[in-house]
């Protein structure tokens, strides 16, 4: 009787589990058995269903790391970080993967006032800022009406102050949302996939070479011209790279 119930429960579970969860756990089993290439195929079949998650990208990065595929592993870890920026596991494994890269590029730190602003802007995602704005506006309207219709002085005073504060919050967060959207638009990272790529001064093959990049290096794409992309490194040096040599992170 008990076994029957368990069996029924299992059947019920498998029905409830979506197709993706099933593929995901199958792929995890393949990974755990060391069949990394098969696991990658399974994980990628989930991506074909237009569904994704930070965990999926993280596992893809892990499997590629085990196969020593430098660029794909960094690419997927970075993608996982985009969806879940504060995950310690992802940051840790990304550091492992970045050990495999060849290029050493200095970071030019952002300092002073702009750094503080950036810190504040990056606290929330654009949509979160937008939701805070909506909440602030609603609160302001409700409390303002309460202020308008209440008769005692003390109530009026409290309602007035809170309504002004919530209006301030709404204005601030809408500004932040614009700022964050602007930052996101500018932030267009890509990973170098070619084993060695020559970065040129102009977007044509005959122009002079500025520097060379190797597999796995992260670059910022500034603009696109025909089959070339203008990139910027974290040390602020720029150049043109063939589009085929890199893969954009935000291209879902």
């Amino acid at each position, binding site marked *: 009787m008990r076994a029957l119930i368990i069996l029924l429960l299992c059947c019920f579970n498998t029905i409830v589990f*979506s197709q*993706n*969860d099933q593929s*995901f756990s199958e792929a*995890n089993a393949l*990974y*755990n058995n060391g069949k990394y290439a098969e696991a990658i195929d399974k994980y990628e079949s989930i*991506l074909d269903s237009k*569904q*994704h*998650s*930070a*965990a*999926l990208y*993280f596992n893809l990065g*892990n*499997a590629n*790391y085990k196969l*020593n595929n430098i660029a794909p592993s960094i690419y997927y870890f970075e993608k996982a*970080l*985009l969806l879940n*920026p504060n995950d*310690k*596991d992802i940051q*840790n494994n*990304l*550091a*492992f993967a*970045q*050990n*495999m*890269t*060849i*290029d*050493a590029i200095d*970071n030019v*730190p*952002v300092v002073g006032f702009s750094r503080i602003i950036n*810190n504040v802007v990056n606290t929330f995602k*654009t*949509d979160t800022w*937008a*939701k805070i*704005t*909506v909440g602030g*506006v*609603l609160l302001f*309207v409700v409390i303002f*009406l309460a202020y*308008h219709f209440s008769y005692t002085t003390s109530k009026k005073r409290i309602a007035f102050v809170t309504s002004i504060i919530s209006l301030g919050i*709404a204005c601030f967060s*809408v500004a932040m*949302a614009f700022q964050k*959207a602007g*930052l996101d638009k500018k*932030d267009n*990272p890509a990973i170098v996939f070619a084993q060695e790529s020559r970065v040129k001064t102009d977007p044509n093959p005959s122009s002079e070479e500025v520097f060379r990049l*190797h*597999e796995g290096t*992260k670059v910022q794409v500034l603009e696109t011209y025909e089959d070339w992309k203008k990139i910027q490194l974290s040390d602020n040096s720029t150049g043109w790279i063939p589009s085929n040599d890199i893969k954009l992170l935000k291209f879902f």
Partner: protein
Amino acid sequence: MNIKNYISIILLILATSIASAQVKFEAKVSKKKLGVNERLRIDFEMNKDGDNFVPPSFADFDVVGGPNTSMSNYSRNGKRSYSKTYSYFLAPKKRGKFTIKQATIEIDGEIYKTFPITINVTAAVDKPNGNTTASDIASENIHLVAEVSKTNPYLNEAITVVYKLYVSLETGVSNWREKDNPRYNDFWSQNIEIKGLNIEKGEYKGEEYRYVVLKKTVLYPQKTGELKLEPLVLDITVEVPTNRRDIFGRPMMSKVPKIVTAGSRTINVKPLPEQGKPSDFKGAVGDYSFKVSTSKTQLNATESLQAKIEVAGKGNLNLFELPKLTVPSSLEVYEPEHQENVRTNLSGMQGRISDTYTIVPQYRGKYPIPSISFSYFDPDTESYKRITSDEIVIDVLEGPTAAISNTESSTEGIKQTINPNTNTFAFIKTTSDWSSIKTEPFFKSKGFWSLVLLPFLAIPLAIVVRRKKDERDADVQGNRIRKADRLAKKYLSAAKKTLGQKEAFYLALEKALHNYLKAKLNIETSDFNKEKIENLLAERQVESGVVSDFISILENCELARYTPITQVTMQNDYDKAAKTISLIDKQLR
């Protein structure tokens, strides 16, 4: 028996000794090649006297002198030696190749013949026969030759130059020194040491000579086009035989100083083909093998390992750069140690060159050393070849984890260091929350703007609504009317529904009127009659006209049950009832 044997052996020895004293009959010419204005001497020599000497017909020559007969006969250590010579001096009649046929002689009853000799008569020479000086003879008999292995090599392909000094059999060289050592501009050159001079025999322009190899040099052309090899100049002392003889009859030698040069040679150096030139080609020409190896592939952090890039083979080994090692930036790499083990011989340089890098990993993890490719040009197959090494992965087993600042965050100005307590490669995640890859952004969407702006519209709206409400509250008379209308409508709503059905309509209407009175006047249904209604209404100061209307409607309701009533009447009664109720309500105190 024994004695007989001895005798026969002795006889045999005698017989062979007689046979060994062979008859020799030869023809010798002073030169095989001469100008048409020169003369030639031919000697017929024999070592035993004979009869009936028949000279060949000198049809193509004029016999200038002869036959002169000379004879010599001497005995040395009891052994007699004899020679007899017939000499002719001949002048050729014309240019061409002529054969002097056989001469015959009869010696001891047998006829002997000489070999025919071919003479080559060339154009007239400047100094016919005349007194040739010793230096002329020297220059004719001493030749310095530079032998080049290949005159049209590729750039950087090895060629060899061998200097040989040919000396004819008659002359000798007593002393020599290099006067001018050639400098090989535009070549990389390597001299090959020669230990001792070995005299060898060889042919020079069809004649027999002795020669010595003086100098061997391996050259690698460094420039394309026509390159000139400077000649080697030697100052030598030549011993030339003179006509005089010493007391032993040997010709006296006179010593002549002589400068000989090996003519300058031109080497046409071909450029390496541009077609199919690999991008990593660094000028290596020859036949090579290429290897990249590491001393270990698994180690702990801060231990060191050696990575070796090695090229072995044949070619311009020390004339090109080895490919560089590229390693992940997180590995510490020291300047490479360069080693060469190259021998040079006549076929070029051979051996191996290598760069050894010392690598010290600082952090744990896997570090791939990417494959390195090495390209060279093979002059034998005239094609470029590329050898690519395998990728090597160095596994650092233990050590601190890299504290790499996240570049993602750094572009946005937040520095995050990796938490040092998680120093293992994390396992995959086992659960996942799925979300659609395509997400519609909320910010700047229609919903967002309407949610932000519409609440502001709500403020004036609410204020207007509130003000309207206050106004209506303030209007007392209007309120009463509105209230009465509302009441009438409330009570008559059931009747209105059944408008058109006679029975039901009047029943509902009567009931509505009763209910109204019940609510307004607080009377029970049991004491419900027209007089009482009239009284009560009159008490409440309702006008008598309105009261009578009310009563007439009630009467109508009763009457209608028994009489036919049209639709229009029903509508009239309804309107009247509504109007009356509202009037009563207004006047009721």
